[in-house]
């Protein structure tokens, strides 16, 4: 995934990249620089993406980052600087090419060595339209007078999976660690599983790559998603992703009514353990997981859009915040939605939420991104 080249010499150094931990696999990645007469190089980034299920309703989100100082600092290439069919939302498998007219965004000069990283993660489309918003903003704690629960949302995309340890470790290694985004509880082998090394790098404990990241504050989550070019969902976005809109194809076409628009759980009305079949990772000895589960472990019980683990596993930070007079001297509360591996089964429903101060780091809280 990481590619280094001498900008002015057009020397390509291509490294093999094996995706893991719910990053999508990109093959045959190549970077090429072409001289132009337009005052700067034209950088071409090519790769193959062979995910079988790439569709407009379930695209990949591809983002590209670069470093001019041998990996000391990294920057996200703005979407507006890229052209081609292989960045942002990619809804069809095959060979992709992205063109970056880099000099507009960088301070490149001759003989600068540049590293390029291309990553992709699975997204799911949530079509525009109305849905049944049942929860109260801030779990009824909204005292900001400004938050209005929305029940009619524009088109957006949400990550199919909760952010994984593998993804987060990539982030830590790129942003330099050194305390940023890291806390030592993340080394808890059963509840998280990130090892910090003396040289300041991080690795995932073997076998835990696809487990969800935990012990992240709201600020950590927001920083990771800024690194990706994504953001946290609002409470309304989270809830619509959970139970679906009144029409699953959206209000523009209205061909596919949601059979249960007020469903309490992503899969419908049955409680998580109804009939002895466990549909999400919650507080029971019978769902197969004592702590978190690898993301997608209950994929037969996804939301109507095919989004995994909205119920249980880890509670998910949302973007909305709520002030409260009792803590007006502190930072406002943020909402965490979706229950967790430690929640009672009925607490993994569409409306249960917890208000947490944004610095809270917990083994039952993680996040996913939206665009």
């Amino acid at each position: 995934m990481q590619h280094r080249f001498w900008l002015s010499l057009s020397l390509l150094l291509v490294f093999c990249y094996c995706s893991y931990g719910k990053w999508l696999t990109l093959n045959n990645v190549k970077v090429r620089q072409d001289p132009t007469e337009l005052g700067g190089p034209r950088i071409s980034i090519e790769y193959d993406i062979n995910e079988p299920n790439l569709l407009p309703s379930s695209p990949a989100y591809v983002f590209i980052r670069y470093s001019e100082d041998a990996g000391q600092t990294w920057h996200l290439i703005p979407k507006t600087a890229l052209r081609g069919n292989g960045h942002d939302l990619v809804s069809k498998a095959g060979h992709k090419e992205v063109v970056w007219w880099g000099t507009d965004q960088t301070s490149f000069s001759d003989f600068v060595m540049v590293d390029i990283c291309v990553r992709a993660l699975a997204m799911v489309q949530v079509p525009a339209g109305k849905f049944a918003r049942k929860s109260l903003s801030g779990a009824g704690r909204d005292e900001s007078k400004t938050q209005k629960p929305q029940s009619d949302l524009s088109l957006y995309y949400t990550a199919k999976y909760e952010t994984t340890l593998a993804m987060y470790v990539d982030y830590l290694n790129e942003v330099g660690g050194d305390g940023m985004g890291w806390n030592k509880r993340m080394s808890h082998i059963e509840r998280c599983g990130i090892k910090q090394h003396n040289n300041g790098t991080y690795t995932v404990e073997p076998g835990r790559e696809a487990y969800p990241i935990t012990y992240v504050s709201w600020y950590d989550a927001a920083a990771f998603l800024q690194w990706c070019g994504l953001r946290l969902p609002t409470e309304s976005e989270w809830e619509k992703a959970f139970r679906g809109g009144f029409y699953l194809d959206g209000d523009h076409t209205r061909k596919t009514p949601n059979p249960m628009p007020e469903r309490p759980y992503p899969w419908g009305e049955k409680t998580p353990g109804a009939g002895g079949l466990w549909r999400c990772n919650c507080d029971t000895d019978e769902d197969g997981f004592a702590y978190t589960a690898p993301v997608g472990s209950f994929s037969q019980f996804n939301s109507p859009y095919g989004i995994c683990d909205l119920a249980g596993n880890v509670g998910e930070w949302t973007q909305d915040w709520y002030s409260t007079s009792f803590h007006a001297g502190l930072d406002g509360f943020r909402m965490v939605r979706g229950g967790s591996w430690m929640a009672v089964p009925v607490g993994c429903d569409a409306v249960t939420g917890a208000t947490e101060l944004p610095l809270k780091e917990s083994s039952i809280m993680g996040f996913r991104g939206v665009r």
Partner: protein
Amino acid sequence: MNTVNRRDFMKRSVGAAAVAVLPYSSVRAANEKIVIGVMGLGGRGTYLAEKFADRPDTEIAYLCDPNTRRFARAREAVEEVQTRKPKLVQDFRKILDDDTVDVLINATPDHWHGLATIMACQAGKDVYVEKPMAHNIWEGRKMVEAARKYKRVVQVGMQSRTAPYAKKAKDYIESGKLGKVHLVRVFNMMQHPKRTARPGAPVPQGFDYDMWCGPAARLPYDPSRYWLNQWEYSCGPIAGDAVHQLDLARFLLNDLPYPKAVSQIGAINDLQDGRDTPDTQLAMFEYEDLTLQMESTLWTPYMKKIPSATRDSDKFPHWPFCSTRVEVLGTEGFMYFGRHGGGWQGYDSNGEIVASQYGRQADKAHQDNFIDCVRTRKRANADVEIGHQSVLLCHMANISYRVGNQRLVFDPKSESFSHNDKANTFLKREYRAPWVVPEQV
């Protein structure tokens, strides 16, 4: 050890006079951990559970809330810092029934503070109860009686009076630097929203709403926090917070005794959403040669609680817009005092600052004091009698509001109002069986 079956005992003691006095329980050895059950797993209860779990000398054995959805956050916080896995229960009587439990932490809504504390005392538990200590004046007195009768340590969560800087301020006032103090102004000025009542929503699975209502009427379930503004469950948002500053004012003046009378201008000036409780309260409590004034609002966003960056630092708040300050006015000097570790500053008759001290928050020290008292059987810093006297001021102001902002003369001996039957109807609530505070605790 007591041989009375505890379940039988509890049956007798709820709604009827207890017939037995528990023997004085043995105090745990210094190297034994104090065992705690936490009742009420909202923000404050979860915070207290985490803090007591993180101590080397205490451990959490039970986490209790009628709403099972509240278990996870508290359990996670506790299990992060202690190895013992707490039991999760919806009925706090399971905590009281367990002889291995020493302490009940009561961080419930206001309407549960009194009865659960009394039942815990009857069951031989010491209690850390959150403020406002009692839902009504009569109930507060019964809490005191229960604590004394069963020789229980009851600490009220009014931690500010434990702060060393508060003691220094008190010493400064007692030294006479302010002259004779004739006026104390207590501020509690906040920002609350209008709320929309949503009565009649279905009770969520996993929530024992009947238990949540307990001694209060079982009104139609409302998923919002509208209950904060209903007399049935609450003393009101003003009382719930202003009691801290009122208690500080009492502390600074050597625990002022009962006031002679209360006058009140209370109103719902801005938050007209059908609530019971006022959003504006200007109450004046009359003492022998002192007036204690409480100025409270719920619609003043520019008035700020002391910022987190100031609370535990060598800084003072911006006093004019400090929403939780106390002003002490003497014949020779003036003092600003700030809650939340805001420190204090003394001024002379020329308005010059002549004494200052930065403050620190006292949550940890208050918890230390409680555990120390559990072991030594001393009275706690915010003993139940002190808690009763402080919340009594809130109740007096509320009752004045409820009878049309009348001036009410208070009879300390009977803890009732003189010549005002209507006001006296608010001294005690109606309790819903079986959750009745008995006359004889």
